């Protein structure tokens, strides 16, 4: 008999987690299963619209998110979101629709249903750090990440704007550092924790990403980090997939593996390495993890 879950959530993976960020999805499911936190995927969820929708059509963006909130009502538990961008869009929709009656009426007309704002939307970090708790997390650690120096990278949308995100301080957040420290890792102090990586310009203007993400990698390297840790598929894509291009453009060699927070926590909590998607990373972490005797 499988042990009973200690917590249960409905789960909105978002589009990337089914494609370019499959390792984020795999490691989230692996970690949560080990911690006995139930994740129940919202049936037939839709794209949240991400940046392109709200950039030119706020009503469309709010309507797509409202539809997803309605769909999530079919599954019990607070809504767990992995992708920082989806998290930001869903919370922004809740925030704006709660305070603006006119927008709410327009959205209700667009989705032809009442707007449902009752379900708390939570990022995975929040679930691990607050609902599950850091003490319980520390107790679940089987293989402490001793000696691994991690640069925690927040990017933009996890904490900004603070009245929407409600995750942590918007200028000096510590939630990622606290979570990974509970797993035994060291964290480095560095300057670019919250600087933008270039976001979705990766498609239209990759030069922007080469510059901004290059600055982030240089800062992490200068602070002595062995690797970066992120919670956003777009940040991951820019820092991991484009790292080789960044190295070619700058003439610097970074070789910094970029982990999702759930990959490192999963490793620490004893999830089998094969279930954490390390082989999907472009900058291979194998050498680093072997050197630190974590693989």
């Amino acid at each position, binding site marked *: 008999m499988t042990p009973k879950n200690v917590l249960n959530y409905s789960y909105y993976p978002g589009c990337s987690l089914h494609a370019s960020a499959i390792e984020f999805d795999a490691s989230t499911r692996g970690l949560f299963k080990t911690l006995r936190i139930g994740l129940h995927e919202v049936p*037939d969820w839709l794209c949240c619209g991400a940046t392109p929708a709200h950039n030119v059509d706020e009503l469309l963006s709010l309507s797509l998110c409202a539809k997803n909130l309605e769909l999530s009502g079919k599954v019990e538990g607070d809504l767990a979101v992995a992708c920082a961008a989806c998290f930001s869009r869903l919370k922004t929709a809740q925030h704006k629709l709660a305070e603006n009656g006119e927008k709410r009426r327009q959205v209700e007309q667009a989705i032809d249903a009442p707007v449902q704002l009752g379900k708390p939307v939570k990022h995975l970090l929040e679930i691990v750090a607050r609902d599950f708790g850091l003490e319980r997390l520390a107790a679940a650690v089987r293989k402490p990440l001793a000696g691994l120096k991690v640069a925690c990278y927040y990017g933009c949308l996890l904490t900004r704007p603070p009245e929407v995100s409600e995750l942590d301080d918007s200028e000096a957040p510590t939630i990622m550092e606290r979570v990974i420290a509970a797993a035994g890792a060291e964290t480095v102090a560095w300057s670019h924790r919250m*600087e933008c990586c270039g976001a979705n310009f990766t498609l239209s203007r990759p030069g922007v990403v080469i510059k901004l993400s290059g600055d982030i990698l240089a800062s992490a390297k200068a602070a002595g980090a062995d690797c970066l840790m992120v919670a956003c598929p777009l940040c991951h894509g820019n820092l991991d997939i484009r790292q080789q291009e960044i190295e070619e453009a700058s003439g610097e060699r970074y070789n910094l593996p970029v982990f999702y927070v759930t990959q490192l926590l999963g490793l620490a909590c004893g999830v089998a390495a094969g279930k954490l998607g390390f082989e999907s990373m472009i900058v291979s972490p194998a050498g680093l993890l072997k050197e630190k005797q974590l693989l």
Partner: protein
Amino acid sequence: MKNTKMHLSTRTMNLDFVRKVEALSGSSVRRCFQCGKCSAGCPMRSFMEHPPNRIVRLLQLGQYERVLAGRSIWYCASCETCSTRCPNKVDLAAIMDALRKCSWDAKGPSKESYVQLANRLFIDNIRSYGRQYEMRLGAVFNIKSGQFLKDLMLGPKLLSKGKLKVFQQKNRNIAEVEKIFSRIEEMRRKGEAP
């Protein structure tokens, strides 16, 4: 229009446009006292011809043509740093959204057609598939922008890592997505939505 002289008069100032932007964004433009904190923290300022605080100043002066003609609004990354840090609670990120919507609706020529093309394809994908289809997004962008070889080396790399899905699974709610798009279009035709 970057370096041309600006003549302020009731003839060159369009304050109706400012009111429209304020209504769309839900943010005041007039509250800004030009401290420059938004531009100081903006990661994209070096790619813009008008930094964020100057965009607001131009709006205050009713100079919307200068704002819409430039590429600055399309080089905003929506990172929310400006809105978060503004001491006067000007929601600059929302103002940028409103400006992009105005430019998008006007369908005029833009200096930043690549960014607009990427947005357009992204939204088309949602309408067609209900979810994002990353491989199609990249491929169609390259074809339509004429950059056939852009990121050519990334494709095989991502495929071998299982990061590119060649086929997109259709969403069972796809009919509902189409209804959302068409209802919004209908509301706009009737003037019931911005």
